[in-house]
């Protein structure tokens, strides 16, 4: 029995060693393509979901944010609150802003967009607008006349919300900003494009500039944004909650809004696409192994005729299928991790919500390796069983 069990491994090894190398190469390549097909869709959807989630954190809310308790308009003594927050373990940076609705006018065009008054150097550490300046420059702390505008406010060719925008503003232009009861002319210092529409429909001025127009806003905030490592965000959320009872504290997910349902739709599509990819992988593997086995039908008949038991022959093909799958997974992984992923890292998919890169979680990778392995084993098993169940003499004589 011990000797018998070595035989399928021996036959599989010799078949791989001496079989046609091109056939082996194309079989492995086909398995690799089937595997890539299985992981690519998941990686892309993960990339879109992760990318848009990161966009919310980087350009809109930070990992955790605070707003005035319901029924109140402002967070008072914002600087004191920020000092306390920055002491909390896990907090990397925190900043406050005062948001007020305003109308921005340029020539005959105007529109209402949120304007946020910020301390540029503190805000810079939490929200990455400064890294997304496409024209001009970011605000300086003591700038009392400068404003930076999101691309969707500026407008222009190819801009998604061009119809409601100012339809073309350049750095150095003057825009008139009308607050509730106040009005001031600002010089456009820069234009930013975060590739996230909700962020790009905002404008920023300095706290100093707002204090001149609305002294009441001094040391007040409408929102406090906190940055932490993604892995620490829940712990940070728990820790900062008790600092000030006059504020409400939220995770960034609370601001995800539409993105939440978009993400959930992507996840559903991902499941569906994965199912389709599994079927494609199963059919591909089955055909490859079935054709291989049918071509060796006579050889299988001869093996049976000289006394090799069918289970050994079946096991031989299951081992071959497992080897094809393993080599396919290795080749597919190499192509994915050293070809596709770096390529899309350098040339991301440009979407209106984010620049998506391929992002495959290890748990998903392992699950898909398991799927391909099982599919290969079953796809090897079924045709081998079919051929070993046919009449021996028919197999030998090719009837």
């Amino acid at each position, binding site marked *: 029995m011990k*000797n*018998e069990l*070595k*035989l399928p491994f*021996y036959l599989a090894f*010799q*078949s791989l*060693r*001496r*079989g046609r190398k091109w056939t082996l190469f194309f079989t492995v390549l086909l398995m690799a393509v089937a595997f890539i097909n299985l992981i690519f869709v998941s990686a892309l959807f993960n990339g879109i979901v992760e990318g848009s989630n990161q966009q919310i954190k980087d350009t809109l809310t930070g990992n955790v944010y605070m707003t005035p308790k319901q029924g109140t308009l402002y967070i008072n003594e914002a600087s004191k609150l920020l000092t306390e927050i920055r002491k909390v373990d896990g907090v990397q940076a925190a900043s406050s802003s005062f948001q007020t609705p305003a109308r921005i006018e340029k020539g005959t065009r105007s529109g209402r967009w949120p304007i946020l008054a910020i301390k540029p150097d503190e805000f810079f550490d939490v929200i990455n607008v400064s890294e997304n300046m496409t024209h001009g420059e970011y605000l300086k702390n003591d700038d009392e006349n400068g404003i930076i505008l999101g691309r969707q406010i500026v407008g222009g060719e190819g801009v998604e919300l061009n119809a409601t925008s100012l339809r073309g503003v350049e750095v150095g232009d003057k825009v008139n900003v009308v607050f509730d009861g106040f009005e001031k002319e600002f010089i456009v210092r820069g234009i930013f494009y975060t590739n996230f529409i909700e962020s790009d429909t905002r404008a920023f001025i300095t706290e100093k500039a707002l204090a001149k127009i609305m002294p009441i806003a001094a040391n007040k905030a409408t929102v406090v944004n906190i940055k932490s490592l993604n892995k620490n965000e829940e712990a940070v959320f728990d820790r900062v909650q008790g600092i000030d009872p006059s504020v409400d504290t939220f995770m960034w997910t609370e601001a995800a809004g539409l993105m939440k349902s978009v993400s959930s739709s992507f996840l559903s599509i991902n499941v569906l696409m994965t199912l389709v990819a599994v079927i494609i992988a199963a059919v591909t593997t089955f055909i490859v192994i079935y054709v291989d086995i049918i071509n060796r039908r*006579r*050889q299988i008949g*001869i*093996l*049976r*005729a*000289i*006394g*090799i*038991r069918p289970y*050994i022959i079946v096991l031989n093909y299951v081992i071959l299928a497992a080897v094809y799958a393993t080599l396919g997974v290795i080749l597919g992984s190499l192509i994915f991790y050293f070809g596709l992923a770096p390529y899309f890292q350098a040339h991301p998919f440009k979407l209106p919500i984010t620049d998506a890169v391929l992002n495959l979680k290890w748990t998903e990778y392992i699950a898909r390796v398991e799927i391909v392995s099982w599919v290969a084993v079953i796809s090897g098993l079924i045709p081998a069983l079919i051929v070993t169940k046919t*009449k*021996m*003499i028919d197999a*030998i004589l090719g009837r």
Partner: protein
Amino acid sequence: MKSKAAVSINKLVKEYESSGNVTRAINGVSLVISFGEFLMVTGRNGSGKSTLMHLMALLDDPTSGEIIINGQRASDLKEKEKFRLRLKELGYIFQEYALIQELTAIENVMLPAMMLTSHKNAKKKAEALLKKVNLENKMNRLPTQLSGGEQQRVAVARSLINDPKIIFADEPTANLDSFASKDVLEIFKKLNREDGITIVMVTHEPEELAYATRVINLRDGKLNEK
């Protein structure tokens, strides 16, 4: 002389059905082959020679009748036992060599023995057998690197690896030239005369009949013993 027959068949019938038409390839053949015989089966094309060989070697099942191999009734054997019988007691040589193309000569010969013994023992035995059929210098060649006669000698060596009592050979010289045919027949003669192996062989060639201890002729699936 052993009392048991090597092969005993009784009223053997094999029918094939195709498009509703029934063809009787073997029509009530009864035959006893004693241990130590070198039996040659002759007959025209379509006379049922190969079908009879397939049935006696348990490669195919009869429609009716009885086959007894070394005292074991084939119809009483389970599939696993038939494999065991083919492996240990019978050797089969096909007309077209039937070697595994991905294995070398020695690996082809070793294969059946690897079911029963270690790789090392199987190799040792295969080397001795290839020497016996004068292929000691071509042990590591693949079938495609051997001539037809050499391939058939590898097939003979493979059929001998588990020390069978009976060898069935279905037109083993059909694809060989006269020299290669003679080589193979001399080996069979030696195996039969010196080692006492029972040989049942199908042939078309009248000059080969001289090697046999008995000749039977099949015509239309029926037996004409000469």
